[in-house]
């Protein structure tokens, strides 16, 4: 019998709080690096002006401990729990929501969650959207993503059919980005989930957004090639930073894939704005 390891849910709550505060104020160095590279390669004057604002904002937010964006997002949390972990001291979901509540109050973040019909704000940015996977081992991995509404609204999914093939997937992804135009705050990162079922494709797409931008799919060379082709096709649209026209519309395209039904070809496109916020920790 493997021994179990106890982890207190109050520790999880504290970490969730810390990660959301940090994610909303400090952009990852990897994201910043691709933004700066894109600024240096930008041909459009208005586009370069937009990039200058974006880079300056990253500095100001970190220096003044202010949120990078006024949309501090819906709190999306991915948790991998090792099957040898025994969570103690209360409920996991309650702990995650407690961490989110404290982060958004103490960080002076905007509360952006409401009842879908009445539109009455829940007041504390909960509930979080929580995805849990059980994995081997005795550790717990937390990945938090404050997800903005503007880019999420431009995300789409479609149940393509096997005959649509790779070309159909490419057309669908590029068309989603073209139709989104200036709305999702380009330069964007495009997360593509292929396969699975309807909901699984969307989760795969969202998970790709936590990858370091521009790092290719390392599991499948077909997907790495697809990422390069999609990035070229998307940047040929010329939408540019903030939609003002220019060389870079997308900083990166991330594709991942899982097997699907013989009748189906699900494709989900999750769009992430340039304020690509995520933080993770292993407990």
């Amino acid at each position: 019998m493997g021994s179990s390891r106890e982890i207190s849910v109050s520790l999880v709550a504290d970490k969730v709080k810390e990660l959301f505060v940090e994610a909303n104020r400090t952009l990852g160095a990897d994201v910043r690096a691709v933004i700066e590279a894109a600024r240096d390669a930008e041909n459009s004057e208005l586009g370069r002006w937009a990039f200058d604002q974006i880079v300056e904002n990253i500095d100001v937010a970190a220096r003044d401990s202010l949120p990078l964006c006024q949309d501090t997002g819906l709190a999306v949390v991915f948790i991998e729990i090792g099957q040898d972990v025994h969570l103690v001291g209360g409920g996991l979901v309650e702990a995650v929501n407690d961490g989110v509540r404290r982060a958004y109050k103490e960080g002076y973040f905007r509360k952006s969650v409401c009842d879908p019909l009445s539109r009455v704000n829940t007041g504390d940015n909960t509930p979080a959207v929580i995805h849990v996977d059980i994995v081997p081992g005795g550790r717990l991995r937390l990945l938090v993503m404050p997800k903005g509404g503007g880019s999420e609204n431009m995300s789409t999914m479609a149940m393509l059919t096997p005959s649509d093939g790779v070309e159909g997937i490419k057309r669908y992804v590029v068309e989603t980005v073209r139709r989104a135009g200036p709305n999702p705050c380009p330069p964007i990162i495009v997360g593509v989930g292929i396969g699975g079922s309807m909901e699984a494709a969307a989760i795969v797409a969202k998970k790709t957004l936590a990858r370091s931008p521009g790092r290719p799919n390392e599991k499948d060379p077909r997907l790495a090639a697809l990422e390069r082709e999609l990035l070229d096709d998307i940047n040929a649209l010329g939408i540019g930073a903030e939609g003002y026209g220019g060389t870079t519309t997308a900083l990166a395209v991330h594709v991942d894939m899982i097997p699907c039904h013989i009748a189906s070809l699900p494709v989900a496109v999750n769009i992430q704005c340039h304020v690509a916020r995520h933080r993770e920790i292993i407990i």
Partner: protein
Amino acid sequence: MKQPVVIHTPLDERTRRNLRAGDRVLLTGTVLTGRDVAHRRMYEAVTAGRDLPVDLDNAVLFYAAPTPAPPGRVIGSIGPTTSGRMDRYTPMLLERGLGAMIGKGSRSREVRDAIDRHGAVYFGAPGGVAALMSRCVREARIIAYEDAGPEAMMELAVVDFPLVVINDCVGGDLYETVNRETP
């Protein structure tokens, strides 16, 4: 690159008519904020024959809901939300004197036509640069719909607020120009 046009509120029709899509501007003066909830409520007020809670005559309306102001600050981070969600309410507000809008993203045909008809203007503010943008805000107070929380309407005093003209009143549209010029 052309120097930005310096403009002040009240933004009269003559000033608005001189602006062209693609111009960069620096705006100083009074700006109102309002987004989804405020628009729905203003629409309901007009439909029910009630007065609007704010004076829209030549007003500049910024589609924004800032983060709460930390201690010692006038405002938290602030930036534009996607304007298209306000489209169904916008022609009605332009008819009631609204002079300019600040947001991000494309507008409907109906809104662009109403902008032409009323000599209005739609400015784009860069999205996702809200910590930087907060530096342009010198005063802020809630003026309507306080119960809507972050979506309450505010009046802001802004200085040198950097914007780009997206839709001017002679049919110019920066986003469409970008589209057309792409091979």
